[in-house]
């Protein structure tokens, strides 16, 4: 990643480098967005839908998303399920083991906010965004596998706005659904750029 960063920085400084940078960004973002290997961090019930998403009926592979249990092979961590205080250090450590650039999808109410376990319990972390930078949130208890696939597509849109030059963002459209879009209820994209590697 450091090499790519340096290249990006150098191109930004070079006169006329912007054109190369833009084309390079387009290639990089295309390739990153279309082979998002996922690290399935399934801890609880939502993991069942995570598994269902990668099998025959929903077929995650067609989006280029292949589950890899090894953090070193993964681009996106899908946190599916309740994160307890005992589990949180392990999740954080696995996230840190993933190579840059990396993204996080919080799947299910538990990973978004603690969900049904928000109140009255002493052991649940109220949302994985307390310790990880989340890119896409999926609501639902559990969300349907289709929502997860939608989240990957939304993440792809987000990646399309990233540049290899640190701190620079590409003027790509970050499409938020219109209020009449049925997707509006299901998935919200965090556009804070926190997933930038």
């Amino acid at each position, binding site marked *: 990643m450091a090499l790519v960063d340096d290249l990006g920085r150098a191109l930004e400084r070079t006169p006329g480098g912007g054109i190369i940078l833009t084309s390079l960004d387009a290639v990089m973002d295309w390739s990153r967005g279309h082979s998002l290997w996922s690290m399935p961090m399934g801890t*609880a019930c939502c993991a069942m*839908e995570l598994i*269902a998403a990668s099998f025959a*009926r929903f077929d995650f592979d067609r989006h280029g998303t292949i589950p890899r249990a090894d953090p070193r092979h993964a681009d996106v961590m899908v946190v599916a399920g309740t994160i307890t205080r005992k589990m949180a250090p392990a999740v954080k450590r696995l996230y840190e083991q993933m190579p840059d650039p990396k993204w996080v999808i919080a799947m299910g109410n538990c990973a978004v906010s603690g969900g049904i*376990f928000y109140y009255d319990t002493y052991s649940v972390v109220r949302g994985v965004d307390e310790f990880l930078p989340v890119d896409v949130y999926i609501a639902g208890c*559990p969300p349907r596998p289709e929502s997860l696939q939608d989240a990957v597509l939304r993440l792809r849109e987000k990646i399309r706005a990233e540049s290899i030059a640190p701190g620079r963002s590409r003027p790509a459209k970050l499409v938020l659904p219109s209020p009449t879009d049925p997707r509006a209820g299901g998935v919200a994209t965090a556009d804070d750029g926190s997933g930038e590697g």
Partner: protein
Amino acid sequence: MTGQAEACGVDAHLLQTGDELVVNIGPSHPSTHGVCRVIVHLDGEIVTHAEPVIGHLHRGIEKMAENRTYLQVVPLTDRLDYVGSMYANWAYCRAVERLAGIRVPERAEYIRVVMCELQRIASHMMSIGSTGADTGATSAFIYAFNQREQVVDLFEAVCGARLTYNYVRPGGVSFDLPDGWIEQCRAFTRSHPSAMVEIDKLLFGNVIARQRLKGIGVLPAEEAIARGVTGPAARGSGVDWDLRRDDSYSVYPRVDFEIPLGENGDAYDRGRVRLWECVESCRIIDQALAQIEEGPIKAEGLPRLLAPRPGEAYDHIESARGSLGVYLVSDGSVRPYRMHVRSPAFQNLSVLGYLAEGHTLSDLVVILGSLDPVFGEVDR
């Protein structure tokens, strides 16, 4: 290495003895079937000691139940055994019904039996599929999941949810069967047994899977009884104990079914017991659907807020993992004073160390899979 071991809570001195290697599996490992950590002591590749560390999914459901009304606890029970949500729903509702003296209408009892047998199929498909995946036969998982998806479709048609059903309620069930559902269900029970025969050939007939499963993790029948193992894990050892028959509840006395038993108590037998239970479940569903009659699906005149008289109640049912019991104490208020869940997955997991000793590390994964723990229920 030593620092890492300390961070994981393993005694560093164990590492220095030379012959023994301590390996941590989990808490995030694809083969632990959830969030379980197993501390394994190895001599070469042979496991000398294995100790499951649980609690990574402890969500405090039993404690939360004390702050919810009786009806509000039902969705929490969904999250206990999330591979078989219907069971926990039902076990809890039976305890509430016993506590409050509610009589459940017959139609609701039949619907519950049908749902729970479908749930058994869905849950066993997950277990058999992961047995395949653990032994390197991912294709078996895909075949099994195909069946599971069909069951999930049936559930979705009834209650709208794919996983957390919240369907069985104190006094009955939440919705009646929709139009055409019975035919849809019959079509499934017609096609399912042949799919099971296919999976039997594909997975349990496969020479590699046989070698990986046969003679692995042998649990003698006496040990199974002594350690409180129930469900398919015990029946694989030939323990002829099934609450559906031996402490019959609901309308099970009116249906005719067999209880498949294993002989050797190894991972192979446990897997096959699950497989044939699915076929028997189809028989139960067919009979129940033939006997079901029109009628109310909820007990009449139930108050919105249940406040049973002070007392305690325990009831148990046969879940896909064994005997699942719920113990409730009431102090006369609208909330349970205490809820305790007797979790079969927890009891079954406790034999892991005993079974794994003397096997290789790769067999440990198979043994864990064959016990079929669900950590939502283990940790509660």
